[in-house]
């Protein structure tokens, strides 16, 4: 790009717009997909009336939440009450700036020079993701505290305790991947998987299961969704919220799910790489299959993990809170530490990333 205004202002601005729009649409339609898929697992149809055949249901839900009365409890801390949902959703959206969706592409010749579809390739991308998504915990605690409801506070504290205790094994599971790839940059990890010819799920299968389980716990989803279950005595942190603020919490949860799914595909499944890039290199460059854009592979993998989230929701009972904490501290952390040691040994023997 010759013009610096275009290169550094217009292009990122357009990228931000596209990413924001896409993420919000995906989060909204995730709610629809969840209702439909869980319903299909439960031998029933989900929402299928809003034209056509239910596809406008999220729009209807969003409209309803927009025109709903915005109730603020009388003795709630007003400023923090308004701030908490924002604190929850902003980090979820910010994280999408480093996630690589596809390699640099000219979009079949539309652009003169290749443009990278992602917003930025930080060389500490993994650290950025882990750090920024932890800021969302503030949204949970402040939301529960500012509602002036002792049950909300208890629920918020339990949820926050769950979130921070599952950060540790998640980070340790990521360390196993970093040992193999040698770089913290997300694009670099995908490139390392391509150059080494193996997706990191094969050597790092334990790390994959750990990351998946911790990811489910991080987003407060079944089977770790005790803080927000309706049949429990303690209400969740979003009890006192209504209208658009509640919608923000809702969207933030689905955005977090999408973040974790994207991270799983980048870290363990090769991001935008087609399956077995080195062995089947001849097949993927043949004219029959060469037209598949890398973004399609990325999207398919992310969709599969989102489907897994929904599948877990439909199947498993939920853990009790003390069992949840026991699992996080006493089971996952030792396993992840042992996994780090084994992977380090493997990397030493086989010779991994620099």
């Amino acid at each position, binding site marked *: 790009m010759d013009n610096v205004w275009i290169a550094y202002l217009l292009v990122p601005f357009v990228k931000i717009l596209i990413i924001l729009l896409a993420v919000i649409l995906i989060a909204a339609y995730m709610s629809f997909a969840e209702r439909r898929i869980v319903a*299909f697992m439960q031998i029933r149809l989900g929402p299928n009336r809003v034209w056509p055949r239910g596809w406008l249901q999220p729009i209807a839900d969003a409209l309803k939440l927009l025109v709903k009365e915005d109730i603020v409890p009388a003795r709630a801390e007003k400023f923090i009450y308004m701030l908490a949902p924002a604190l929850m959703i902003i980090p979820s959206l910010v994280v999408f700036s480093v996630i690589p969706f596809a390699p640099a592409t000219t979009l079949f010749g539309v652009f003169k020079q290749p443009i990278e579809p992602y917003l930025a390739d930080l060389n500490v991308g993994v650290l950025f993701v882990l750090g920024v998504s932890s800021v969302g915990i503030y949204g949970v605690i402040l939301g529960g505290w500012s509602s002036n409801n002792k049950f909300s506070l208890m629920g918020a504290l339990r949820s926050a305790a769950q979130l921070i205790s599952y950060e540790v094994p998640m980070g340790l599971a990521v360390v196993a991947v970093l040992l193999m790839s040698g770089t913290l940059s997300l694009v670099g990890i995908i490139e390392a998987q391509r150059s080494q010819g193996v997706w990191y799920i094969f050597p790092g299968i334990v790390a994959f299961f750990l990351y998946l389980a911790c990811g489910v716990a991080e987003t407060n989803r079944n089977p770790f969704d005790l803080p927000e279950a309706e049949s429990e005595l303690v209400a969740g942190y979003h009890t006192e919220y209504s209208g658009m603020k509640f919608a923000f919490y809702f969207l933030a949860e689905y955005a977090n799910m999408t973040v974790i799914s994207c991270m799983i595909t980048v870290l363990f499944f090769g991001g935008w790489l087609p399956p077995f890039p080195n062995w089947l290199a001849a097949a993927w460059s043949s004219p029959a299959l060469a037209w598949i854009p890398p973004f399609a592979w990325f999207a398919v993998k992310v969709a599969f993990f989102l489907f897994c989230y929904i599948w877990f929701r439909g*199947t498993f009972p939920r853990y009790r809170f003390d069992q949840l904490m026991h699992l996080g501290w006493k089971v996952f952390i030792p396993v992840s530490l042992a996994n780090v040691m084994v992977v380090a040994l493997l990397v030493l023997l086989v010779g991994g990333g620099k």
Partner: protein
Amino acid sequence: MSFWSFLGVVIPIDLLQGLSVTGRFLFKKKATIRYPEVKRTPSPRFRGMFGFAEERCIVCHNCAKACPIKIIHIEEHFEELEIDGKKKKKKVLDRYDIDVKRCMFCGLCEEACPTTPVSIWLTTKTYETAAYERNERLYFTKERLRNWDGVVPFPGVVSPGNGMLPEEPGGAPEHKEGA
């Protein structure tokens, strides 16, 4: 613990079994009936909205006595009628009201009716009697019972005023059980 049970803990076979069950159901035929475009046909003995045939009713009050909640209100008077050249006293039905909002559709009135076929019956397959105003619209007088005012008959069912006959078991002539 043994190696296999350790493996069973590490590889969540039980969780994967559960996932396989729900995964299979994802592709099975769904059980939802898409009301109101598609309606489920009730069985022939289904106890639904009342059918009343005034011409068969002999005003014996058996139904009113059998009702556990006393929602059938009957009034009659005697009239001198000319039948076959002789003067006879006949009961003429003045009022036959059913308070449907209280009815529990137990079917005891249909069992108590002695005529053949019965004069009050519930096996009409009709259940769409919803109304916006409860006290007026769900109180069925003789005339409203005949023309089923406010009731949506089940597709294929005619109202009593158009000659509907009761179904078995308590209604049709061949199937009347002693009770």
